[in-house]
């Protein structure tokens, strides 16, 4: 499909970000092949130092840290992509409904979005996740449910403008179907939607990691946040050099992912 962004040449920064992100997706896709051990396998000696057998050593329970880290790629990256995708989709679809269906729908949806926006997102996501059953799906739903309003607000503003443009007015005047209208709106809103998808994915990683870190969410899901939490819970983390392989790699992995996503958007402007 042709759109506004594909024609533009990518900046060096964007290319780098895309390369980094491809590595992440590659690892996420082939995680089971890369992982030397199962994440549930705690038969290894505890607190082993990095060696050929355990690349990043083992934790106090006897899990292989490298396996946990790689497994986190799959879980966290997939989860973040799904959360980013669905929150962007929800926001965009609701924005379209608000603009297409007329005043009453617009009023109701915008009011709801405003209600959500008043409370800081992180607080409300944590609140919801605390009261929900601690499963991965619920954490995911909490993130999606409370992060669409920002997407909605921006996309609605953009759509409002587009709906009033002559090209869409022509289709409306000719009683074109929703598909006809969408076809004309797409080129104008797709760049914003893409940007939001990346931003929302970024946000989802941060939220999920933060939630796991606070001990909210699925206790069995071995996400990056869980790994950070486990490292922080280990009382002798800074006593020896343990933090070098227990704590630093996972922090780096999260930071690089979040920063690449952020820079990808930033470079596109």
């Amino acid at each position, binding site marked *: 499909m*042709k*759109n506004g962004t594909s024609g533009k040449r990518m900046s060096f920064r964007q290319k780098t970000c895309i390369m980094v992100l491809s590595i992440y997706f590659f690892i996420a896709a082939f995680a089971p092949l890369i992982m030397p051990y199962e994440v549930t396998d705690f038969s290894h000696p505890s607190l082993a130092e990095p060696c050929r057998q355990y690349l990043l050593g083992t934790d106090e329970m006897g899990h292989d840290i490298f396996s946990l880290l790689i497994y986190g790629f799959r879980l966290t990256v997939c989860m973040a992509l799904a959360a980013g995708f669905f929150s962007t989709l929800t926001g965009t679809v609701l924005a379209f409904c608000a603009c297409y269906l007329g005043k009453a729908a617009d009023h109701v949806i915008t009011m709801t979005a405003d209600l959500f926006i008043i409370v800081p997102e992180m607080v409300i996501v944590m609140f919801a996740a605390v009261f929900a059953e601690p499963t991965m799906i619920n954490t995911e739903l909490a993130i999606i449910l409370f992060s669409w309003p920002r997407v909605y607000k921006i996309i609605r503003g953009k759509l409002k403008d587009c709906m009033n*443009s*002559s*090209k869409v*007015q*022509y*289709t*409306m*005047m*000719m*009683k*074109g*179907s929703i598909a*006809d209208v969408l*076809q*004309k709106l797409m*080129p104008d809103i797709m760049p914003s939607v893409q940007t939001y998808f990346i931003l929302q994915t970024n946000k989802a990683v941060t939220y999920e990691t933060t939630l796991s870190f606070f001990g909210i969410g699925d206790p069995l899901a071995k996400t990056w946040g869980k790994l950070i939490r486990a490292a922080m819970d280990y009382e002798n983390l800074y006593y020896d050099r343990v933090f070098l392989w227990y704590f630093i790699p996972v922090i780096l992995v999260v930071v690089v992912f979040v920063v690449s996503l952020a820079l990808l958007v930033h470079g596109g402007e």
Partner: protein
Amino acid sequence: MFSLQNIRKHYGAFPAVTDVSLEIKNGESLVLAGESGSGKTTLCRIAAGMEKADTGQVILDGNILAPSCRKRSFSDCAAIQYIFQDPYHALESGFTVRKTLEECTRICKRHQREVMAAEDALAYVDRRLLEYLDRPVRELSGGQRQKVCIARALMPNPKVIIADESTSMLDKKSGMEVFDLLHRIKEEKNLILLAVLHDVDFSCTKWERIAIMYQGCLVEQAAFADFKTYAKHEYSRAWIAAYDYFHGNLHPSPAERAAMNERNADI
């Protein structure tokens, strides 16, 4: 017969259009003139169903049309075609000309309305545009885009064409071409042509009637030829004084203009 009866539209306290009634016979062309903000565009948008009037009716061939195009039947919507002021926003610049025109074909077929083929409409408007058929709209000039808009408006065989300052974004020569084209279509297809016009010098002498709007009211209606002599309203007099056309200075003269069109046809 296309008529607007007692149309009134207020935006809050601002009276955009106040009790305007207007009748246009089949095959007649009417210029709607007036200063900016006098309600010309609002009136046209109401006629096309893009805006809902507070009171008043739009009547086409004896049928009272619903106030907004969402409620109008498809054939009523297709019968009144609107040509926008800005050809750069009226067409999606990423689409090819063919895709732009085929949107109309698709919609008409869905509603079982007879529709002109895209190629035929384009050739009818300007044969030279045929070579742009598979090129994206962004490669076209303003004048060419406006002609594509006219071709698109022509396709569903409308009864009324409303041109809302359709030449204000174009250079003088393209503007003349567009108006000559609109008049040719009007003559050949016996359509009603309602045009909002700022610059009458731009236009040709073929207009049949003129209506002047001032602060939302219709202050004067006359045959175009008599207008200079009989115009009474203050604003009409000022309007006449502002244009060379009414002082006998036509550039280009009708003869030059005909020659220009012939030259265009040759290129």
